[in-house]
């Protein structure tokens, strides 16, 4: 009970109050803790925790395979992919560089060999001041130690002194040309970018379905969305504000037809509106971007700088309030159910 409840609640209260009130205290080590160490500690704890998650994933997927549940073949793929990356992440550096420290008088065979193996396009000017203190590093690493050794042997047969320099642990996951980076570029990135790109399709089908003028609120949502969508792209500045004015007149007519029974009023409005716009246009000579209010790029700017800011600001303040009060509830122990203490 003490270990399960009392201490965790004490930890929340202590660190919560410490980081909260620490903001007001001028003290280097407190500042350092709040600005840096506190989050770093969390990162470290989370880094340990991720192994729990990985274990859980492996366990569930293996169970599927062992029990031959439907789709177990895919679970096998997940397990193998996991193991592949786990191995290149922790047990194989996957990046061994070769550094040339002396070159023969005729470097051409060596340069040919290097270019052939690495698809680089080196020429002799790259090797001008190569020596033991200042070796030349071939920027394309080898995936395995043995392939790098082989290459060193090949170079040696051409009279070139070279050595294998493995990438240090830790740096190996970020070395361009390394195995981990290859995985990142060719598996991880395309998958994540494509999942992200699926959104382009989903956003289209969602707007198609949801952007319906069911009521006044939905109409506002729809109009704001459409105006931003057109106004922000180049096509928007090709649409004359006069066209938008005509549309507005007709749009108001449609709205009126729902409110007013008398057809003559609607007809009168539309006729008057169209005439007014036409006369005004003839007076002003139909400039594409005037009156500014009806020019889509300007209109979208207004929507996003004025009513949108108001709405966004209210949500921001609301969220701020919610977070502050909720945080205080945790710090003062008013709410404890996140550790299962209801």
């Amino acid at each position: 009970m003490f270990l399960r409840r009392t201490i965790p609640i004490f930890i929340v209260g202590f660190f919560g109050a410490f980081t909260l009130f620490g903001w007001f205290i001028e003290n280097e080590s407190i500042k350092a803790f709040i600005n840096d160490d506190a989050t770093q500690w969390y990162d470290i704890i989370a880094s340990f925790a991720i192994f729990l998650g990985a274990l859980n994933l492996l366990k569930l997927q293996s169970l599927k395979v062992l029990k031959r549940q439907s789709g177990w073949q895919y679970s096998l793929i997940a397990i193998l992919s996991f193991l592949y990356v786990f191995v290149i992440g922790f047990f194989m550096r996957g990046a061994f560089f070769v550094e040339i420290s002396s070159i023969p008088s005729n470097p051409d065979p060596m340069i040919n060999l290097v270019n052939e193996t690495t698809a680089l396009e080196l020429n002799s000017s790259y090797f001008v001041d190569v020596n033991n203190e200042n070796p030349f590093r071939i920027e394309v690493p080898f995936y395995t130690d043995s392939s790098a050794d082989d290459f060193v042997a090949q170079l040696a047969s051409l009279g070139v002194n070279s050595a294998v320099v493995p990438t240090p642990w830790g740096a190996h996951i970020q070395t361009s040309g390394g195995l981990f980076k290859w995985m990142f570029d060719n598996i991880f990135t395309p998958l994540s970018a494509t999942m992200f790109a699926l959104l382009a399709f989903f956003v289209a089908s969602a707007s198609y379905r949801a952007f319906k003028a069911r009521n006044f609120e939905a109409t506002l949502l729809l109009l704001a969305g459409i105006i931003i969508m057109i106004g922000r792209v180049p096509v928007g500045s090709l649409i004359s504000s006069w066209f938008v004015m005509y549309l507005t007149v007709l749009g108001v007519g449609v709205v009126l037809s729902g409110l007013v029974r008398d057809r003559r009023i609607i007809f009168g409005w539309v006729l008057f509106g169209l005439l007014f716009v036409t006369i005004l246009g003839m007076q002003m000579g139909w400039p594409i971007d005037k009156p500014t209010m009806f020019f889509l790029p300007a209109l979208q700017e207004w929507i996003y700088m004025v009513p949108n800011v108001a709405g966004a600001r209210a949500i921001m303040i609301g969220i701020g309030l919610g977070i502050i009060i909720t945080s205080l509830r945790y710090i003062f122990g008013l709410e404890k159910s996140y550790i299962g203490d209801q």
Partner: protein
Amino acid sequence: MEKLENIILKLGSIDRRIIFLIIGLAVLIPLLRPVDLPIRPGPSSQQVYDAIDSIPDNSKVLISFDYGPSTRPEIHPMTLGVMRQLLDQNRGHKIYVTCLWPDGLYMAKDALKTINKEYTLEKYEDYVLLGFRPGYEAVIKGLENNLRAVYTVDADLTSIDDIPMMEGINSLEDFDFIFSGSAGYPGSLEWVLYGPTTVPLSSGTTSIQVNEVLPYVQSGQLKGILAGMPGAAEYEALVGKKGIATSGMAAQSYGHIVIILFIILGNLAYFIKERRERKY
């Protein structure tokens, strides 16, 4: 009329996979056969351009690469554009590159490679890639406190003390301008919240983030913002070097038009259905 209504109704209950297909084609075709559309810089992009333009000669500019490959088409043209604007004028600006995202490092390396091809630059004289440090906003706070505690070495493990252009730089306040190319958390928001208030800050963000960041532009905490790919294209136009953002804008425009047509169609179908249901 009745027939037309029926067609619209049928189109209104279209399978969403057809929508997917049409959207795909609307984006793909302009990419295969590029079209040139006029680009008119908006005020917030102009503000970024002017803010960078107005920094004094020989300024130290920090560019933070806070995005990864998935948002590259949007943000990459912006960070490249900022570097080009800084270097174009030959005013002796120095570029310092940091990354709050691990993938940001690769983006930064890539951008520096491109820039190095276009300009003759001296590493550690004109630019330095400080690299990625984990810790999200804690990195910003750390940089503000003591930059040299966060970065003891640069991305190539060269000691900071051996880099000539790092002289006199001890915290974020020693920079003259900060630009964050940001695709989410941590990014522009964190730079505003935890960064220095004395250094002008601009940001380029994905379209999606714009709303969140906009109030800070309004309140002046951010000097303008490049909003999504259109922002990037506008900025490319301002800097005068057209790139992938500009060519993507045609695809973008068609994509939008298709979506809007679908929305209009959906609304027409909705109204027709409503009216018919009311009648019977």
